[in-house]
């Protein structure tokens, strides 16, 4: 399934204090990672709403993830825990829609973890590359393409 020419579009929601700072540190350390991610800064991942995750996919992103502080280290105490909960919920919605839930994810990192930021960017980009383009991509023809997971299920159901 992996299409190595496929360059996914990925949106990252990062909190101001940790993940955004980690991304900056990755820059200071000149760590190289794929160009596919586009970051949107939030004060805290606690502000990240499910609608923002879904909207990202609807707007044409092939994947979207949230990057917040380490658990227990949120600058707003528990915002990242709320975010994780919402990301998990968004996954269940995607499953219902027949979209791979792996297209959304939650990561935690501290502001000193520049290397971890780059690693996540690599990891997630590769994950989406493997999944291929989002079924929601294109000119409004949502779900015209049968999602990989759905297609696989259908094939399994075929008589041999």
């Amino acid at each position: 399934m992996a299409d190595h020419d496929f360059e996914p579009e990925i949106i990252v929601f990062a909190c101001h204090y940790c993940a955004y700072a980690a991304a900056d540190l990755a820059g200071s350390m000149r760590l190289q990672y794929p160009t596919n991610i586009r970051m949107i800064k939030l004060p805290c991942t606690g502000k990240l709403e499910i609608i923002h995750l879904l909207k990202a996919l609807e707007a044409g992103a092939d994947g979207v993830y949230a990057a917040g502080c380490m658990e227990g280290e949120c600058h707003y105490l528990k915002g990242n825990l709320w975010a994780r909960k919402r990301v998990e919920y968004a996954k269940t919605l995607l499953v219902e829609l027949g979209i791979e839930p792996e297209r959304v994810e939650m990561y935690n990192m501290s502001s000193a973890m520049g290397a971890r930021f780059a690693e996540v960017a690599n990891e997630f980009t590769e994950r989406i590359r493997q999944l291929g383009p989002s079924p929601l991509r294109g000119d409004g023809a949502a779900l015209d393409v049968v999602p990989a997971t759905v297609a696989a299920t259908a094939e399994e159901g075929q008589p041999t």
Partner: protein
Amino acid sequence: MSTGTPAKSTGAALVLGGGVAGIQCSLDLAEGGYKVYLVDKSSALGGHMAQLDKTFPTNDCSMCTLAPKLVEAGRHLNIDIVTNSELTALEGAPGNFTATVYHHARFVDPDKCTSCGECVPVCPITVDDQYNEGLGERKAIYKLYPQAIPHTYVVDKKGYAPCKSNCPVETSAQGYIALIAEGRFADAYRVAAEPNPFPSVCGRICAHPCEAACTRGSVDEPISIAGLKRFVCDTAGPTELPDKLPVTQSEKVAIVGGGPAGLSCARDLAQLGYATTVFEALPVAGGMLRVGIPDHRLPHDVLQKEIDQIVGLGVDLRLNQRAGVDFTVDGLQKDGYSAVFVATGLQTSAPSPVKGDDLDGCLPAVEFLRELNLGNPPVIGDRVVVIGGGDVAFDTARGAARLTPASSKAPAVTIAYRRTRAEMPASAEEIDEGLDEQVKIEYLVAPVEIIGSGGKVSAIKLQRCKLGEPDEKGRRRPEPIPDAYFEIPCDTVIFAIGQAIVEDFRSGLDGVAVEGNAVTIDEQTMATGHSGVFAGGDVAPTGPLTAIEAIAAGRKAAANIHNYLRGEQLVSLWTDSLAEYRPGDAELAKVTVEPRVHMPEHDGAERRRNWVEVRTGYTEEQAIAEAKRCLQCAVCSECMECVRACGPGALLHEERDSERQLAVGAVVMATGFDAHDPGEHGEYGYRRYPNVLSALEYERMLSASGPTIGDVLRPSDDAHPKRIAFIQCVGSRDQDHEYCSSVCCMYANKQALLTMDHLPDVTPEVFLMDMRAMGKGFDAFYQRALDRGVKFIRSRPSTIKEDPLSRNLSIDWEDESGHLHTSEYDFVVLSVGLEPARKAQEAAGKLGVALNRHGFCELREYAPLDTSREGVFVVGPFGEPKDIPDSVAQASAAAAKVMTGLADSRGTLTVDKEYPAETPMEEEPRVGVFVCHCGSNIAGVIDVESVTDYATKLPGVVYATDNMYTCSSDALTLIKEKIVEEKLNRVVVASCTPRTHEPIFQDTLREAGLNPFLFEMANIRDQASWVHAKEPERATAKAKDLVRMSVARARMLEPLYKVDVPLTHAAVVIGGGIAGMTAALALGDMGYEVHLVERTATLGGHVLEIDRTLRGSKPAEFVAELEQRLVDNPNVKIHLESELRDFQGFIGNFSSVVVAADGKRTPIEHGVVIVATGAREERPTLYGLGASQKVVTGMDLEKMFAADDPALAAAKSVGFILCAGSLDDNKPYCSRTCCAQSIKNAIRLKQAQPDRPVYVWYKEIRTFGLSEEYYTKARELGVIFTRYDNDSLPDVSADGALKVGYRDPYVGRDMEVAPDLLVLATPTIPSEGNDKTSLLLKVPLTAEGFFLEAHVKLRPVDFSSEGIFLCGSAHYPKGIEEAISQAYAAAGRAASILAKPALKAGGVVAEVDQEKCAACLTCVRVCPYEVPIIDVATKKAKIEAAACQGCGVCVAECPAKAIVLHHYTDAQIFAKEEALTMELS
């Protein structure tokens, strides 16, 4: 507060030390209305905390918690950050000091540096990175760490390297050597040639004083500095003539003499824009370089190339022009030359003093060499004797040796010299090469007579000499030995014994005084007595100079001629040199011996037959190898590569150290600590064994931003270690450190846990004496380590041995029962202690601040912040080793101390920035986009022009441009102009990170009358060009996307306003113990109204139960004094037998009711609350407590002391059980104070009756910090300490005779004693009523029932609800000094709010849409700060802007979508998302 009457004190403070404590203190003071000078010795703030990976006991990321504070301090208008500086003197009195601050030059202008870092890759100097504890490397120009504040670079320049300071033209030899080592030959050539127009020449014949001074010479051999210069000139010298320089000055200058002095002067004058003419007497230029040195040493074409380079600049060289014959100086001046430089040299030999020198065959050396070099070799015989010992003698001798007639063998040449080789002025190379060429040298001989035959020389008569006393120059004088004559047969004698001025020059120099062989000049200006006439080189002031000295003279003359002609415009050369710096002996001892790479040369016998250059020059490999031997003495070499790379022109290499006087009212020393250097402990092998690391080094290794990016690697082989040991108390609790460093147990615990995160297979082992987990949450942290399997071994190993092959380490240790073990590890971390910072001790000495016997700052009892000098306070580990929260609390406390002392000058020196009113904006978005090159940081990868061009096409964009540095002041001015001209109402900057730069641009918007929230940044550097350097096209595409997304969001931005919310300048303090009393008094002294609410009928709390303190004073006396001051303070209202009720409101605007015992209700409006409700001693039913009168608690014992209870004197033996009911499942935490209190009483009992046995049974002895000395003292007095644990509790039988059974682990036996008194150190437990207070104020409690602060490390006395603070044992069990410290801290934090006339509220805060709100309480439930309330009147949710922290959790959770977080609205986020794949039409 300004009351109209002029303030008596100065409303400013100096905070020394920019670590976390110094930063906190500065922030509190600045917020509290004071101007702050935050002075730090290093180039950036952060101190040790910036080096830490994680902090205990929460394992929070250290940088995450520190960085926001750094940024806040960096931005604060009233904090002046003074880095690279030391406090050197403090004069005046408290309230009005004058502080002298010595500033070490930074060499970078912080106002111009944009932190783009272009300077770093070009810098050729690499040194150990001290921020990474030497585990990594950095350049000589560097930023301390990526997040450093100030956000600017600094040059590590220790002075001038010896090579530079000993070079007459101050060549940055270390610079070109470093560049050669990197293979950057063209850059190296530039460095070599810039100060010296004859680098190729000097690369060959220079006397190289640099090499004599070279530090490497004291290790093995000096660097071949001249040889490397020759290499780089031969390899990278110019191959073409330079462009002629434009003449920009109206005056003409004449130079008499075309030697090195004259031509150097000519070059500099040409570069300064003068039309310059050089008059040379000979048919060739170059002076002695040309006619004094034969080809075999300096080929004429090498010299000619460099002369051509000078002439090529436009210098008019006129040959065959003889002074005094063809022209005169007067004549030149008449011809319009405004200045004349006389550099004619000494063109004749000094007359010989020997009889017979008129014989045929006697020659003067200068003339001999001149004729030889002009191509007319003089006729000489087969046997030549040269008299002299300088370079001229050798050039003559070696030249003569080469004058081999075609028919005969080469002549035999002898040099006759009066002294020995050691005194010979000729260079060692000349001597060695001469000897190689079979030149014979007769030492210790003086010529007596030249013997002739037939008018021709036939022999020379010489007299043997011996060395006598040194002469005035320090050279030993030759003394002829009587009658020791001998003859050398010869046919030519050449005298090389000195040079002289040519007689007919004198007539050409009318008006110029000549004395002997020298023109008289002023040595400073090089001016002769004749106006406009200067002189230098061999001709002035003293006889023969080396080539490099002549060049220096010429260059200095040019600078002085320029000064003379320009008058006011001074050019200075070598007048502002830095002091010489070379590494110390300790550093040199580490250098591996590696002899010099010798330059190859032709065979001696071979070469004496030709004129080919003797030495062949280095190959590239040889040159690089030799260059790498350089020790980089001064770190920065002044190669000036950074200057060339720096776009904004921020380098200031000419900066020098300076001093500054600051008027301040108080000083706070937050000077931190020095980590103990375990190198002093030879037995642990630190520095000798690569796999033994200090804890600070290990911390850097654990850090994700450290040198190994968080990978734990054995330094010896970069393998992952399998067995790691930690050794505690290295530099603590030993003979040299009679104190406990308080933090090492916990940081080792942390490092052990982190090790397991990094290396899951490793089980760390910790060697310790006691586990000092005496702080809040520490025991739970220790338990976590135990639960995860960290092995704690109670032993103090004495040595570590290394297996030299495997580099593994073995530790011998003795267990608690005395058995010996040996364990092998492959990695050992030494938990180094905290020592008083040496720099702080120096500062203390200068300030007159007394130190205690440990070297820490001496502090008075009950005054834990006051030094011996009034008005100077101390916080953090300089007072006593302590952890971050205690230091941070002290920082706020010191701020409070300053505020009480300077209450009358509050707000007198602080400033508020004034902005113009906002101009009304157009309705349609008009976006301006500014795309930054950041030098080449962005533009080197991303096509900035293309991004800019793209931006112009985006919807809403009316203007786009690119800037070299968008944050530079000219670009900021441009932004302001464009906002006005283009009526911009949204601004997007595509550059670096908003985390550092957004405030700068927002400020610019405000200055242009635009709301600061109409600004958006696209991070195309840190998150694009830097991380996609190898994919320029894709990085450019990404940058376009980011700009498009930013523009889309910008169009949706709305102006936001912060509004003033009125604030009640009054405080409520709950709890009248020592903490509450101290906090109330501090606020009262600052001039704020304070209500002190105490439940009981008296003030003082539990402290009154203590008879005497550790130091022996009675706390009751201190409490009485404190109470009197409270009563006397008109601002303080004491409410006894009262409770606080009906608390409501938000920060700055609370209202409560104080209800007295009689039911009287007093409503109070207040801006802040301080909780100081204390704690109490538990009385558990344990060990017979309550059953036997012989079993008492610690507080009972205090009462017995106070009452002088006869039972005390009667007790024949006394036992103490520590941790009675603590450190078990029931009370798993440490009560912190009881060890020291119990030991104090054990000492007291022992001292009263030294023969009385006193037993102490303990689980842990936690006499942290300086209280360790009481533990030591108790043991010295014979108090018997025995450890027990939860499996072997003492067995107390209290019915009838008191008996204590216990197990002695060392002898391994059960023992029993029968004390007459048993004292239990029972747990300190939370006050009754904490639950009620917690509910009333809506502030949280810990599981143990103490109050929970906002952040363990950084907000130790704050609650997460704004405006509510905490201090004393309500937080956790505290000693008296700690409670006082914290009380001041709470007061300081409270004052930073009360000092403001009003609160600012608004901006990025949540707001409820009243229409949509269903009052479902979701927001009330989810807000971590308990800000939302349901308004009683409207029955809708209400979020007070002043209290909202802006996290947005409520917004995301609100089911009705009734809450909006301003600046992060759905519309704004959606716009960004939708722009992701938007195509341009």
